[in-house]
């Protein structure tokens, strides 16, 4: 019977089957961060459990770290980070300290380290773990209790998802990126449209994406309600992971590569749902509400879709049936596990070069990892940003989660490359417009929401 890539990954990891769609899945890799694991380690201690396979675990601090050069001044954040380091030491888990030069956002460093590989199951106590599906891995976010279960047993009871294939034909237009593709999909199927489904991306426009673009796309599936995004690995994938610190070498690499080349949906596999998007019809996207599903093309008018939109528009201080272009912003944020990689910084820098951030805007660039930061500095991107008036920060989640030194005041309006425009996500009462790195860069310069395609003309 023909199988989808999801079916193949699932079948290859079943330890035991349960009732209905339930199975006990073997978990190959677990990424840890400081926020979702204190209670997991407490569970291990309380029950007297050890970590079953320490070499399958990798930890880093990202959510509560300060991205200011002086480091955190918040004692609670410092204590949380110190607790992660102490727990990792006590349980024998690798922890990437800031001094290692390898620190960064968990979903940036997994792939950078070669910890993320095709064909594996990978989990993390973070909903954006779907990011790693860009490598053809079955990756999904879990809660703190499940982090403890994985550490103690290397297995998790899971419900087999239904499958959805999203095919994106043609090529993206200039000024349009993987972020716009992701937002356009969420606009099409809704914030819950992917629930109970694993989404596999296919089509010319997806194949043409770099690994950075593919990670952006898979990262955002949780905003459509899906826990798992997938892209079949290909030469782009293999070139990205070759020779990374934790990738297999020599004969093992050859053996792995032969297996990875089989990781694709059979040509006659049947998906439970099929969605087709045409890349050339996707305009730069911007959210207008407080759910990622409340998203629109930059050149459209803000829709008026009833009471729910009205509540969101009241929070956002916007009026239905008016253009989104021209709405003034106070803050611009470039970074996060969605758009904090080198290609994102290059796309933003290309817009910013030789121009100035609007006097009314505070603008931040937060590289996704220390490696991304070093690479950007080698390319001179940091100078382009700082000359324009952007702050050039240390790596971390920063304004995507606002549980660190970066928080917006109530009423502030931010053009943001992050993944969630929820109420209060960037600070209680703050207003978030999600968009691509190029769009945020253009908004920072104009001091208002603009169509980046105008900057490219």
């Amino acid at each position, binding site marked *: 019977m023909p199988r989808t890539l999801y079916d193949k990954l699932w079948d290859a990891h079943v330890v035991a089957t349960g009732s209905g769609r339930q199975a006990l899945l*073997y978990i190959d890799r677990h990424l840890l961060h400081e926020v979702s694991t204190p209670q997991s380690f407490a569970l291990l201690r309380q*029950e007297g459990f050890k970590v079953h396979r320490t070499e399958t675990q990798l930890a880093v601090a990202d*959510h509560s770290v300060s991205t200011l050069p002086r480091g955190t001044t918040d004692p609670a954040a410092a204590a949380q980070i110190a607790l992660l380091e102490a727990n990792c030491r006590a349980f024998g888990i690798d922890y990437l300290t800031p001094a290692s030069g390898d620190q960064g956002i968990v979903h940036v460093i997994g792939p950078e380290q070669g910890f993320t590989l095709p064909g594996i199951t990978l989990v993390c106590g973070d909903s954006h773990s779907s990011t790693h599906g860009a490598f053809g891995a079955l990756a999904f976010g*879990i809660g703190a209790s499940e982090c403890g279960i994985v550490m103690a047993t290397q297995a998790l009871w899971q419900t087999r998802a239904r499958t959805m294939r999203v095919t994106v034909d043609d090529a993206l237009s200039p000024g349009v990126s993987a972020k716009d593709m992701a937002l356009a999909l969420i606009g099409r199927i809704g914030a819950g449209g992917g*629930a109970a489904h694993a989404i596999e991306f296919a089509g010319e426009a997806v194949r043409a994406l770099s690994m950075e673009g593919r990670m952006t796309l898979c990262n955002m599936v949780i905003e459509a309600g899906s826990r798992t995004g997938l892209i079949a690995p290909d030469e782009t994938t293999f070139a990205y992971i070759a020779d990374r610190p934790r990738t297999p070498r020599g004969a093992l*690499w050859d053996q*792995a590569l032969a297996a990875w080349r089989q990781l694709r949906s059979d040509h006659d596999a049947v998906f439970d749902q099929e969605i087709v998007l045409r890349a050339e019809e996707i305009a730069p996207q911007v959210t207008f509400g407080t759910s990622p599903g409340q998203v629109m093309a930059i050149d459209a008018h803000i829709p008026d879709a009833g009471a729910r939109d009205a509540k969101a528009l009241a929070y956002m201080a916007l009026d239905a049936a008016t253009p989104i272009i021209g709405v003034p912003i106070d803050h611009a944020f470039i970074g996060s596990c969605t758009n904090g990689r080198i290609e994102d910084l290059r796309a933003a820098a290309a817009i910013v070069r030789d121009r100035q951030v609007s006097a009314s805007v505070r603008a931040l660039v937060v590289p996704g990892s220390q490696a991304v930061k070093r690479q950007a500095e080698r390319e001179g991107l940091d100078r382009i940003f700082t000359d324009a008036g952007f702050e050039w920060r240390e790596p971390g989640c920063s304004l995507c989660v606002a549980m660190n030194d970066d928080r917006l005041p109530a009423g502030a309006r931010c053009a943001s490359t992050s993944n969630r425009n929820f109420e209060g996500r960037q600070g209680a009462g703050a207003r978030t417009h999600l968009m691509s790195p190029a769009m945020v860069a253009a908004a920072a310069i104009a001091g208002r929401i603009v169509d980046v395609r105008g900057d490219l003309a």
Partner: protein
Amino acid sequence: MTPLVTVCGPALSLPERDVDTDIIYPARFLLLTKREGLGRYAFFDRRGTPGFPLAADQDAAPPILIAGANFGCGSSREQAPWALGGLGVRVIVAESFGEIFQSNCIKNGMLPICLDAGTVTNLHARAAAGARFAVDLDRQMIVVDDVAPRPFAIDAEARESLLNGWSEVARIRMLHGADIARFEAAQRRASPWLWPAAEKEDQQ
């Protein structure tokens, strides 16, 4: 974990859809590293706003919450069910849930129940009118004011865990320890690149 067999009492109606876990538990409180005593942070930024059913100083809620569709979407933070549990919530009924939230509830002895939109709308009205709810997990029934029992579905594994209050780690180890060992031996042969430590041992 406390077993969950029957839960009786009034219900809190919160019909808004897409209530994300940032609304249930704002991110700034994620710096706390304990799971106990989080009830006061549940819906922290919503309390006291017009029409919201929890007061700023309220530290207990009815044991049953009737919620809107896609409840608990977004972040995987388990602080969301911990905070609701801290208020005394044991059962949440909605048309659909954020999947990670749903699974986190079960891991914490809380029962998420999915019902069709029409039934949920009716339950919101009954909750707002002060009806008394009785949820029976053993029989998989919800009864409102002692009449019209409504059946609900739940995965057999989740039902069993909740009814018994089992620790999942202990259960996996006890029932499937040998299965895991067999799986590992097979994977180590078939996909040796996934066993970096083993590879080092072999070379020594």
